[in-house]
């Protein structure tokens, strides 16, 4: 770090010797911000590209060169066949998978964190497996299972597949939150005449809720995003990622960029709301 810093500083010194110490200390003081800015630029350049090209009126099939500015992609999101159908399907699958995985995963997390039972250690270990298994393996094994059981592939097999991999993430997230919760708080509630249910409703749940919410958001984005496992188990059903993939072989409608932009802005908005809410609660 010292060498990278001294070089521009030395150049500045030859130009304006009197200002040399100030220049150097400015760089030193801002080195963290500079690195952060570079990293953020690196991360958000593709996003900026997606948003910018959602306003492009493409001249080619792939929406890859800037032609002229237009709002028509935004006003006509559902124009090209398949965009909105696949989007709606992905949102539905995401919602169902999130619901299923969050409920099941939260219950498992409570059992693992609060109860002593036979096979607890094994469960703890096995719950990590879906996270560690390569998606290709998981997708193909699920397909084998469904075919063997003669379950028709489609909407519900996708939901089941998504719940399978979402659960692990929910369990890990909620369990971490539960383990950070001081059990003496629950005891204090019991001491103050709250029965088991009231203790859960008034103390445990509100304190664990941020963890559950975080887990649900994570589960949704994993489900919405998934391509590989979905592709194995979808049959004739086309989710949004599959639609984009399929389209990219022929031509990508700029509406895909619109959907991408909306997703980005929505998650940014959620994060901001979460921050404000959190600050307010702490204040």
């Amino acid at each position, binding site marked *: 770090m010292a060498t990278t810093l001294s070089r521009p500083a030395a150049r500045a010194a030859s130009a304006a010797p009197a200002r040399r110490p100030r220049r150097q200390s400015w760089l030193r003081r801002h080195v963290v911000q500079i690195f952060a800015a570079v990293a953020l630029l690196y991360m958000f350049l593709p996003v900026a590209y997606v948003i910018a090209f959602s306003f492009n009126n493409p001249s080619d099939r792939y929406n890859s060169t800037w032609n002229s500015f237009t709002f028509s992609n935004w006003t006509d999101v559902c124009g090209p066949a398949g965009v909105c159908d696949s989007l709606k399907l992905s949102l539905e699958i995401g919602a169902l998978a999130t619901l299923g995985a969050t409920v099941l995963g939260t219950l498992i997390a409570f059992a693992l964190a609060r109860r002593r039972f036979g096979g607890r250690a094994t469960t703890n270990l096995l719950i990590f497996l879906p996270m560690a298994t390569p998606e290709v393996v998981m997708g193909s094994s699920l397909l084998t299972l469904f075919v063997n059981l003669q379950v028709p592939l489609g909407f519900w097999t996708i939901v089941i597949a998504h719940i399978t991999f979402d659960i692990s993430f929910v369990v890990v997230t909620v369990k971490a939150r539960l383990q950070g919760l001081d059990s*003496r708080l629950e005891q204090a509630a019991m001491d*103050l005449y*709250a029965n088991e249910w009231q203790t859960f409703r008034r103390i445990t749940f509100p304190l664990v809720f941020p963890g559950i919410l975080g887990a649900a958001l994570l589960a949704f984005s994993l489900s919405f995003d998934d391509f590989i496992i979905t592709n194995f188990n979808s049959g004739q059903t086309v989710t949004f990622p599959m639609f984009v993939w399929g389209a990219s072989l022929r031509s990508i409608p700029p509406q895909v960029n619109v959907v991408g932009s909306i997703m980005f802005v929505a998650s940014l908005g959620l994060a901001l709301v979460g921050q404000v809410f959190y600050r307010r609660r702490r204040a």
Partner: protein
Amino acid sequence: MTPTAGAPAGDLRLVELTKDFGSAVAVDCLSLTIPAGSFFALLGPSGCGKTTTLRMVAGLEEPTSGRIYLGDDDVTDRKAYKRPVNTVFQNYALFPHLNVFDNIAFGLRRRGVKDVKAQVDRMLDVVELQGFGVRRPSQLSGGQQQRIALARALINTPQVLLLDEPLGALDLKLRRQMQLELKRIQTDVGLTFVHVTHDQEEAMTMADTIAVMNNGKIEQLGSPVDLYENPSTVFVANFLGQSNLVAAQIVGTQGADLLLDVQGRKLTMPAARNCATGDSVYVGVRPEKVRLVPAGASVDLPGHNVLDGVVIDASYTGVTTQYVVRMAWGQDLMVIAANVGNEVRLTAGANAHLVWDASDTFGLEATGDIAEGIETIDEAGS
């Protein structure tokens, strides 16, 4: 069955209560009766099982064996929320997501009380935190949190209030003030208080009865005066205040007195004050009961005990002067002399007689370490 505040109170009885954590026996066959409406203090060194005892009474820890009775009710198997008992936790355990008002109102609301505002405000008055209702626990100092924990339990006026070092984080002035307030509430409402403390003075000034605990057992139980004047074990003699203990042999009797031999010197002790069963005893006397007389002065008073030694330290503390006097056999004894104005002040190196009324002498069973309980005073005081 729902707990009702101010229900006809009964004695709290612990019968052969034991808690074995596997790694340690925290409470060891403890039997105890705490009369209804009394202020009871549990005093003992760190780790002796005080918190565990309270937790079993509250219903937060299941006893390994033994029973707990409240009046005529056996509450051993009753859930915590069904016991008319509230706890002020050693670590406060305030609910971080609720503000101070909701924390204090928690117990009342769980019992279906609708209009809690007046009571909560009165409670905030009592703990001198008016206007703090909207704050979160994380925005309070340690002492303020402790007072909220107190308010949260007190507002329920339970039959039995368990206080686990409830004043530990307060400064001296606030501590004295809260002690008075607690004592006032206890006598006003007639609640049974079980108060765990490290602070001997606090236990002595507030409690009707003190139980000194050690290693999961009650060493001795009695009124503050009784415990201090008549300690029955070495641990209590050393833990509660200070004691001069020396090993002695009983060599005979003379009327109501026992004749003792301490390293060749003759002492006497009222037979009634001897707790030991054998001929080997530890004899003790409290340091403030001993007078220090310069060597050479006449000390041949009837009914007094005398030992000789050399002053090795004299420290002036204002109200008293504390002397450390070394005996011929190498043991150091302590004398605390009140600075009343006309006494002869001795300095280090002076030869002196230690003189005390023979009736102030007590005898303890000479088993175990003669210094047992001394170390813990320093710990507790710090």
